[in-house]
Each structure stands twice: as structure tokens, then as C-alpha cells.
């Protein structure tokens, strides 16, 4: 089982869409690796720089509501995957993006707005580690350390354990 977690990239906005995560002009690529330099290239967010160390070194994204809305492009989870981000934590997701994350064996964790707020309080040099077995995550920063349980359905957990939906479905159907 792979490790989930890393340095946190905080994206303080709701409704971040898939065109912002990976613009359509790069959908002509047929390898995931080719997407790598273009992560969050068109994100409209005050002060955000996709080339900043915070973005480059991130392993986890913490954000607000309706993350990944818009297109069905799985290029959105893929551009995270090739940039070594395998966990997104948000207060809600667009359905297709959320499913795409788990289908790729990655985590799209949904937490209430208040908990997201508590995570944002750690902004500036925070790290998150995920205890996948126990459905629990820990955030650590200069402000201290906090642990939160997160909900995950049996199916989503099984997808991550199987390494994604293709392997799961291939074994079962």
C-alpha cells in the first residue's frame, strides 16, 4: 500500500474547476507525464503561483467546496498524480472528479467546512499524513499537531486498496 500525505498546498477558494486544474489545450497529450508542468496553470486565485515551492513540493491539497467541477477529464487527477499529490481534502467535490480520484487509487477526502477551517489554521509549512487503515489524518505545523477522522465508503476504500477501478472491476466482473 502506498503512503498518502506530504506537504500541504492550501487553495483557499470554492468551485475550482478542471479547466483551472489542467487547461483543455493540454488534453491533446496522450501521456500523463506530459501534463506535469501545467498543473493549476490557469487557477484564478489571488497570490497563487503554480511555480512556487508550495505548489511544487506539495503532496496534499486542502481546499474548499465543489472542487474539480466542470469537465470529466481524468487529466485533473493525473496532473496531481504526476506531481506526487495523491490526496485532496475538500468540503465537497464535483461527482466525476471525486470518482476519478478513487478510480485512480487516490484519495478525495471530504470533511465538514469547520474541519477544513481548522486545517487552514495550520497554513504555512504544514504537513499531513494519512493513516489509511484507520481512516484518520494528522496535520502538523508550527501551530502544533491535530488528528481528524475522515469518512470513506467501503467501495472507495476497496478501490484504493485494489489500486483503482480497472483492477477492481477486472477481478470481479
Amino acid at each position, binding site marked *: 500500500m502506498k503512503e498518502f500525505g506530504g506537504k500541504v498546498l492550501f487553495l483557499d477558494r470554492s468551485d475550482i474547476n478542471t479547466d483551472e486544474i489542467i487547461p*483543455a489545450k493540454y488534453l491533446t497529450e*496522450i501521456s500523463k507525464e506530459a501534463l506535469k508542468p501545467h498543473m493549476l496553470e490557469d487557477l484564478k486565485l489571488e497570490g497563487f503561483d503554480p511555480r512556487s515551492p508550495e505548489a511544487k513540493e506539495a503532496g496534499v491539497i486542502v481546499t474548499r467546496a465543489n472542487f474539480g467541477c466542470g469537465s470529466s477529464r481524468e487529466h485533473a487527477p493525473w496532473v496531481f498524480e504526476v506531481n506526487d499529490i495523491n490526496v485532496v481534502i475538500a468540503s465537497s467535490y464535483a461527482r*466525476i472528479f471525486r*470518482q476519478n480520484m478513487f478510480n485512480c487509487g487516490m484519495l478525495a477526502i471530504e470533511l465538514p467546512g469547520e474541519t477544513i477551517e481548522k486545517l487552514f489554521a495550520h497554513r504555512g509549512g504544514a504537513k499531513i499524513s494519512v493513516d489509511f487503515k484507520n481512516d484518520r489524518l494528522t496535520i502538523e505545523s508550527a501551530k502544533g499537531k491535530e488528528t481528524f477522522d475522515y469518512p470513506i465508503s*467501503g467501495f472507495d476504500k476497496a478501490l484504493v486498496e485494489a489500486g483503482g*477501478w480497472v483492477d477492481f472491476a477486472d477481478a470481479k466482473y
Partner: protein
Amino acid sequence: MAMTLSEKVFRAHLRDEPFPGTKVLGIDVVMCHEITTPIAINDLVARGKDRVFDPAKIKVVIDHVTPAKDTKTAQQGKILRDWARRQGIRDFFDIGRNGVCHAIFPESGFIRPGYTVIMGDSHTCTHGAFGAFAAGVGTTDLEVGILKGVCAFREPRTIRVNINGRMPEGVHAKDVILRVIKELTVNGATDCVIEFHGEVVNAMSMEGRMTLCNMAIEAGGTSGVCMPDEVTVDYLWPFISSGYKDKKEALKDFEKWRSDEGCQYVKVLDIDVTGMSPQVTVGYKPDQVKDVSEVEGTAVDQVYIGSCTNGRIEDLRVAASYLKGRTIAPTVRGVVSPATPRVFRQADEEGLIRIFMDAGFCVTNPTCGACLGMSNGVLAPGEVCASTTNRNFNGRMGKGGMVHLMSPAVAAVTAIEGRIADPRKYGKGGVK
């Protein structure tokens, strides 16, 4: 127990429930285009599983970038083309016969009431107009759909939208759906199916219903849905006539999918269209919608008429009714993309292509075109497009560009004036 349409479709297609709340459905139509499918094909090949569950249930089109614009898009087309041939997929629409997926597949009679439909494209919700459950999915879901003919869903809840009243002149299905999105907001229908009911929907053509359902995803909806009725039967009759004694028998068969009286809705929204204004988006989210009067006069650089939302024959007829005998403003670039070859041919036969060309529009081949800024019609930074498409996201039609979503009627008069304009000022059929 009283059930919604999608609950009935789920029950009829249920293959497995591996975990409580997760329903694995058998899929009737798996649709593929050249942007999201090649990576699935390459992965199947790499896994040594280069097969398809049923070539007759797989429909394939090249539509996003066609003709290919560069080596990469040529390669995407080639992967899809070679695969379709290799797998014996007969319903493959290549250049010359291709058009926008969500226009050409329904036009070909592939979607029926009660069907389950998936595609690696978020606007797959369009096909719910036929009383189907139709959902956009990612490449992995698509890959499993191709290989196994199944897809997993959480059973969606249903939002009922009642659309009643008298449609004013100059107001169309696009205005209605923009109003619905404004009310629901961009995530108001997440994990929900949106059912469209009411006298306005009943009176709408299949084209109008597809425009409604097409934008269900802009409110986060899994599928838009209209109840199958006589309009559905009439549209599908050329494809189904051999299977039924008459239209009455077909209607009876289709009606079994309609939501039952007393079924459960998580939300009911009532929209009265009487006196409604044409609607236009502002900003970068499709729920940022205003009456046309509030944005009238905004200068535009380009007007785009087309896409899976508004590139069908009715849309071109509406736009042409305003453009007839007029020319577009010299400051505007007009681009129209008929959604399919059949729409193109029909528009030609009806004299619409001539009207667009005389007005100063560039008429492109059927393609997704400017909608997502990956082939033609891309905006320069700072430019504004009045567009009949479905998304106004930042950078959607080109980095730094601004897109205002609107109906073909508003787009046409905007092209004439060079600024966002109100079609009602032009009177019935565009006669001022």
C-alpha cells in the same frame, strides 16, 4: 413503491451492489471521443486486455479537434480510428461524417428511454432528454465500460424542476436552463439527477430538451432527465418503427420509465417563464446569470454559435431569423459551427448557411470548436466572446478570455450590434 425515472433505470440495470450504496450497472451505450478515449485504449493494450465488451454498444466519434490541427491530435485520431477498426466497431464517425458527440449520437437514434449511457465527457447528461440515465465519467470508468460494459454509481437522488408559464418571444430553452442553474447554483445538484417537467418542457422539441439536459452538469447534476412522451416517440420513430405496431404502442412502452406519481424528490424547483428575460452569464461560473438588460451594451470581439448545447438545426434557425438581411458589426468575428453534417446539410437546404455567410459569419465544419479553446476560435487575452456554449470558466476559450453564455437569439443580435443585445427588440422572427 413509487419510483423516479432514474430509480427505475437503476433497478432494471443493476448487476451488483459490492458495498451498500454502490450500484454497479450494466451499460447500454458506451460513447467515445478522441480526447478521453486514447489513454483508455493504450492502458487496455498495456494490460494485454485489448478487447471490448460488445462492439455494437460502443459508439465512437472524432469531434473535439477535427480535422486534426497538429501531430498530437492526429495521433489521438489515429489511436481511436485504428482501435475502432480493430474491434469491429461499426458506429465510428470519422472526418466527413463526424459531428459533436452529443448531437450526432442522439441524431443517429442511439439513445432510447430507459437506457444507461456513459461517456468520457461531462456533457453526456444531454442524453437524459430521451428519458435515459446518462452520465459523464472519467477515462478509468470509460475503460471499464469498454472492457466490461459496467459502471459504478452511488444511486442519485432526484431534483424536480417544474417549468411552466408562457415562453416569451426571444426566450428559449437556453435561457430557461441558465435560470435553473442560477437558482440551483454550480453545486446545487451534485450527486443528483435533475428532472425537467411542466408545460414548457412538454411543448419543447427534443432539441430544446437536449439543451436543457446538456447543462445539468453545470449545476453539478449527474444527468438531466425529461420524461419520454409523444415528442420522444416522434423523434425516434425512424429508428424504432420496425419494433412496434404503431407509435401508440411505442409510447406505451416508453411511458413505463416515467417517474411515478408520489415518487421521492430531494428538492422541487418551480420556474415560471412568463415575462422572463433572455439570460446571459457574467464572470467565470455558469450560475452567475443576469437578465440581458443588465449586461446589454457590453462590447464583444467574437460571437460563437455552436456546440453540444446550441449547435442543432433549431438553434441555427433561430440565429438566422435575426441575421437574415443583416450584417454583423465590423468589430466582431462571427463563427458558427453546425453540430453535425446532417444539421449542416439541412441548414444549407433551408438557406441558413447563405444567411450566415451573407451576414459575415465564418461557417466551420461540425466540431466542438471554440467551446473549449483547443482547436479553432481561441480568444486572445482580454478578448470577449458571446457564446452559445456551456462553460464560462476562466481561460475556457483561451487564456485571459471572457465568455458570456447565452442563447442563439441573443448571440445573433449581439453579432449584429457588436455589443450584447436584447433579441426582443427585434420582434418576432427578428423583424425589427
